[in-house]
Every structure is written in C-alpha cells, then in structure tokens.
C-alpha cells in the first residue's frame, strides 16, 4: 500500500537566498565545420571536460561504444541524437546543448557541415554571440570553411573562433597552424569580421579545449572554454533607436478591477532602444505621435524598459494600433518603404524565382512580396559577387530587390538585427525559403502632420 506522509505543507516552503551565485549571463555559440571535422567530438569534449555530463549519459555512451566504436567511447554519440544520424554518421539538423560554468551559461547550436544543410547553420547561427569554425589541420581552409565564415559574416556574428582541430595529426606543428591562419587572413578582410581568435586544439584528446595542452608551448592564448568564458559580449542589443513591434493588443474582456475597464495596451518585445514613461512616440503605420502613459508589466509598472524586454505600453491617446504596428521613438527614425534591398540566404530546394509572390515576415508583420531583381550571387570560392544570376538556389547567398504590398518600418540589419531581418515564406506550402537581411532605407518614417522630417 502506498503511504504518503509528507511533512511538507501544501504550499511551497519559504524561499531563501541560494547558496551558489547565479550565472550572470548567457552566451550563445554555434559550431560549424565539414563532415568529419570533429564538431560533435568537440562538443562532447566540452561537455565531458567541463563535467556537464551525467552518469546515465556516460552509460549510454558506453553502451553504444560496443555497437559502433569497437569499445572506445565516441563523444560524437552525445550529440548525434537521432537514429538516422547514428546510422549514417552525420548530423542532420541543428541540435541545442546546454551547459554552465561558474562564470557563464552556454547555449550551443550544433550546426551540421553538410553542404545541403547550410540553412541549418543559418538557423543555428542567427542568434549566436560567437561562431566556432572548425578546420581540420590536415586539410586547411576548404570551401566549407569559407562558406561558414561567409555566413557568420553575413549574419554579423560579433565574434569568430577558428578552432584548428586534429593538431595531433599534424604533429602539433606551429608552422601548419600559422599557415592555416594565413589562409584565413587572406580572405577575412573582405568579410568585415572584427574579432577572430585562432586556437589549436585536439577535440579527440582534449588539448586546449578545457585544459591547456602540453603540446602547444608555442601557443600563448586561452583554451577554447577559457575564451568562451571570457569573451566580452556586452550588450549585443541595440539600445539606440526605440522600436516596439506590436505583437498583441491587450484589452481585458471582463476586468474584475474597475480601473482596468478602459485598459488598452500594446504588448510586444522591445526590438531596439529604450522607452520611458512620458516619452513621445510615433505609432506606425498611422503616423500619429502620442505619449507613453505607462509601461506595464506583470510585475508592476516600470519607469523605463529596454531591448529585448517584453512589455505592454499604454498610450495616452486611443490610436489604432494592432499586431504588425510599430511604435518607434522620435530620435533615430526607422526607415520605411515598399522597395527593399536585401542580402539573402536561400534555404529551399525550389530556387528563388523572380516575379513569384512570397509572404515576407518582418518583426510581427507579414506582407506579400515579389522579388523584382536578383542583384548578385556570392561566389563562395572567390567571395566575388556574380551580377544578375538567373536564379538563387538552395544554400546560395546573394543580394536581391523586393517590392512589398505594404510599407515596412525597418532598419539596416547592420544597425539592428531584429528590425533588419525577415524571412520569406512560400505561398501554398508555407515553407520558410529564405533568410533576409535588409540594407538601410533611403526614406525614413515621419509623423502624419509634423515638422519631423529628414
């Protein structure tokens, strides 16, 4: 018979301060490399050496060691989660891993190197603070390395790490390491990447991953984990121009509190800048200037809020604003227009067609879009733009012009990732076919009736 003699009351026991201090922030990174560059092994090594693996995971590794590894533990089995992957020995989709050290929490997007899965790298890298490009020391820079680096540059990942792996197989040669660094440095300037760190490692043996290697006395830098713990990510968010794409209108139906009878709030996640109660804002597309009466949150009203907080704004005037509207500050006005110029990564097996209609989702608004011009396609080998391509096919990076059915309110992607990005959705199948990064508009928003114009 089941006996439940719980001493606990039916409520949560009182909450006291914790023992260990909370990690202060989250660093997101992604790993990219070709098949057999050792990505999964590297992640396995990071988890293993940072003691982020649990006993049952180790047991599962040992079980599969007998099946696939001839008895040796294969760290790659930790991340190659799906049966199809284990059978084919490839990573077929983005997998996310989590671990924490006393200094940081980490979210890893393990993105595959297969050429046909570049779309997954874009997925995994789009929110990353750091991209780790893995290079096989024996092979040096190959097309995949350029592609991954070009994508990281296109997505404007703030920090890049080139992990030169399998250094044990080139005799820990400093000359070989420098040679690979030079191969990278030959094309990096063309990609506008500011912070690049080169680290010689052996993921298989653990050298310079978590613990410093005895084989690289010539390398004075940090281990990979040391670098990830220390890299300054500061605020990746734009705090300069206030932007609130309205997600949802908050209007209580049956408020028990009489004060809430007339409550009407615009809920959304701040996509840029800082907002303060009492501040004047411009509501788009109506073009009306009003005042922020209250910044409402579940935890109470706040005097100010910033990107990327989720808030509900109560405006002084009853203005038509709904999902897809954008509330912006009066300084740093947003760009606008129906003719857009963008860099794209094409992510679908059906090529980009000029003249075909797509849905374009930008912040919280979805409009129709037609591609009017294929400006160029980026040659990954030479990193040269090839003007006026006939099509953009799966995994192509390029530049296009589009016309949309309603004006967008946006920023250049270089200024604001959240208001400068969009996806294209194929009509009918609803497949996400492209990731787009907007170039700045020539036209900026202005109030309906006002002196505010540039």
């Amino acid at each position, binding site marked *: *018979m089941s*006996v*439940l*003699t*719980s001493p*606990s009351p039916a*409520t*949560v*026991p009182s*909450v006291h301060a914790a*023992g260990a201090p909370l*990690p*202060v*922030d*989250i660093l997101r990174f992604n790993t990219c490399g070709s098949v057999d560059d050792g990505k999964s092994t590297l992640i396995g090594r990071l988890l293993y050496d940072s003691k982020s693996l*649990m*006993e*049952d*995971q180790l047991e*599962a590794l040992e079980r599969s060691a007998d099946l696939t590894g001839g008895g040796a533990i294969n760290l790659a089995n930790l*991340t190659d*989660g*799906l*049966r*199809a992957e*284990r059978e084919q020995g490839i990573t077929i*989709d983005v*997998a*996310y*891993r*989590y671990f924490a050290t006393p200094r940081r929490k980490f979210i890893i997007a393990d993105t595959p190197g297969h050429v046909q899965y570049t779309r997954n790298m874009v997925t995994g890298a789009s*929110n990353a603070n750091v991209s780790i490009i893995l290079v096989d020391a024996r092979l040096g820079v190959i097309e995949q390395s350029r592609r991954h680096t070009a994508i990281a540059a296109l997505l404007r990942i703030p920090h890049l790490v080139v992990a030169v792996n399998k250094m044990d197989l080139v005799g820990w040669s400093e000359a070989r390491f420098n040679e690979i660094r030079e191969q990278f440095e030959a094309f990096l300037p063309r990609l506008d990447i500011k912070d690049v760190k080169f680290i010689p490692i052996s993921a298989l043996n653990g050298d310079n991953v978590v613990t410093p290697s005895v084989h690289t006395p010539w390398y004075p830098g940090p281990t990979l984990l040391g670098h990830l713990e220390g890299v300054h990510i500061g*605020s990746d968010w734009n*705090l300069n121009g206030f932007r609130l794409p309205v*997600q*949802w209108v*908050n209007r*209580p*139906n*049956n*408020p028990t*509190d009489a004060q809430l009878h007339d409550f009407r709030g615009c*809920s*959304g*996640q701040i996509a840029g800048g*800082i907002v303060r109660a009492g501040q004047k804002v411009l509501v788009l597309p109506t073009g009306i200037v009003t005042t922020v009466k209250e910044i409402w949150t*579940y935890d109470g009203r706040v005097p100010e809020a*910033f990107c*990327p*907080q*989720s808030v509900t704004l109560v405006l002084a005037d009853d203005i038509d604003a709904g*999902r897809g509207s954008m509330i912006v500050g009066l300084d740093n006005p947003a760009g606008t227009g129906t003719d857009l110029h963008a860099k794209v990564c094409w*992510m679908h097996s059906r090529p980009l067609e000029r003249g075909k209609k797509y849905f374009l989702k*930008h912040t*919280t608004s979805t409009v129709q879009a037609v591609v009017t011009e294929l400006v160029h396609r980026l040659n990954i080998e030479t990193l040269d733009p090839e003007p006026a391509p006939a099509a953009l096919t799966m995994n192509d990076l390029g530049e296009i012009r589009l016309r949309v059915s309603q004006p967008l309110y946006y920023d250049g992607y270089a200024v604001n990732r*959240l208001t400068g*990005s969009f*996806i294209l959705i194929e009509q009918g199948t609803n497949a*996400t076919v492209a*990731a787009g990064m907007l170039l700045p508009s020539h036209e900026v928003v202005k109030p309906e009736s006002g002196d505010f114009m540039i």
Partner: protein
Amino acid sequence: MTSYHLDHLQHLETEAIHIMREVAGEFERPALLFSGGKDSICLLRLAEKAFRPSDIPLPFLNVETGHEFPELIEFRDRRAKQLGARLIVRTVDQAIANGTATPGPGEVSRNKLQIPVLLSAIEEFRFDCAIGGARRDEEKARAKERFFSFRDSFGQWDPKNQRPEIWNLYNGRLNPGDNMRVFPLSNWTEMDVWEYIRQEELEVPRIYFSHTRECFRRGGQWLPVPPPHPDPTKADPYAGARPKPTEPRKTMVCRVRTIADMISTGMVESPASTVDDIIGEVAAARVTERGSRADDKASEAAMEDRKKVGYF
C-alpha cells in the same frame, strides 16, 4: 550600461513571453498543455506575464493516463481555477472505452496511448496550436526541436524537414489540418526551471518535495507502489504495475524529480524539502532528469519514435 543588462532568467523569460504572444497573435485556436508538472507551472506564470491584465487567451489541456499521482491532479485543477482558465481534460480511459486508443498485449504503460488521445482532443476542439513545456536539455531528440514545431495532419514530426528558425521570426503559417506545437521553454534547463520557481515563488505539487513513500524495485528504478484497487469487480487499472513478490519493496524518504505518471516515474531518494534544497540537488546531480523516466529507457531512440507519430 549595467542597468540595461538582463540576467539569464530575465533573458529566458522575455524570449518565452515573446513566443507566447506570437502564438496569441498568429493562431486562431491555441491551447496550452498543462499537466501540473514543474515545467508547465513555469509556462503558466509566463502566460500571466504575457497576457495580464487580460485573461489568458488559451484553454488548458491535459491528457490523463489514469495513473496520475492524486496530488498532481488536485494541484492542476486548483491552479487552473485560480487563474480563471478553462481546463479541458481528456483521458486514456475514455479513449480505450470508445476505441480511439488500443493498448498492445501486455502494455502496462499508457505513455504511448496518450498520443491518440492528444491528437483526437486537438481535432475535437480544432486546436491549431498547442503550447507545451518541453525543454531541449531533456533528451537527445528534444535537442533538435524548434520553438515552433510543425506537425502535419497526422500529428507527425519530420525531423529532417523542419522549418528553419532564424532570429526571432517564427513561421506559424498552416494549411487546414496542420498543427503547430510550440515550446517556449526550449532553451531552459532543469536548473533554470527551479531557479525560476524560486524567483517567482511558484507553488509546485508537494510530491516534488521529500516525503515518505513505499516503493518497489523494477528496471533499475524505485517505482511507487500504486494505490489499492478500490473495486475488485472491475479490472485493476494498475494491473501489471503492482509489485511482484520477487520485487524488493522499501519505504523510503524520496521525491520525484520529473513526473510522468505513477507507473513510469522513478522516485529518487532525497531529503530535499525546499526549493533551495532541490536547486542544490540539481547542481550536484550526477544523472539527468530523464534518467528516472521508464518511458525513455525503452530504447536509444524511444523519444524520437514517439515524437514522429505525434507525441508532444
């Protein structure tokens, strides 16, 4: 600039609120899967944060296996009532009775049988989206989930053909019959969940805290001894899940780390009686949370196989 800095819980919170509001904005008939477990408790607080002072614009849905811990059901009902939400409960028992679900010969666990029940509830209420509390750190197949996980009209997940998710732009477009599962806690770890419960002072069912319970040993785990069979004229709902004479029994001081139902939840020996104690345990844990779940131990790919046919 330190004042414009979010710590990790604030960061995870704003990400999840954004996703909740995207669901409210993009779907006609969304529901929220609420079991009373710790992850879905966090979901409810996030829903409050996303939608208050309005009502939470989603009914709660729960699929009962019929083997639930009574404390969990009591908590679930009470919490839904406190929040003024509509709670829809569908049970495996009903589904077996009306033929929607058929247990395999000798199949004791009803974990798999939840799949047809969930799918038929989605059909019955024409839900186009179900928010769930699954986390990517739970299991290898879950690690590959998107925030917005597209399911076809059979409820199937196709891991090789997922929609790319870029920045915070989620593609929620569906054709008739299609369905979306949305997981706002995707980036949360077990530790984050408990830290959030502590920060928000959320009530959790008391079976998460240490208590004395009679258990028996099966499959390398301590399973709770099911409640006595009340009516011998009817079939025992726990047939097959009762200790055999050969299986060792022990009255132990224990708690649950993760809750499935009574017959697939391993009890862990633990003196943890406060949220702080639990956080201390999670920090020192040497096995994963799902290490105590019998349903995941069926095979290496147990979760992958269940998700492909519509498991949440």
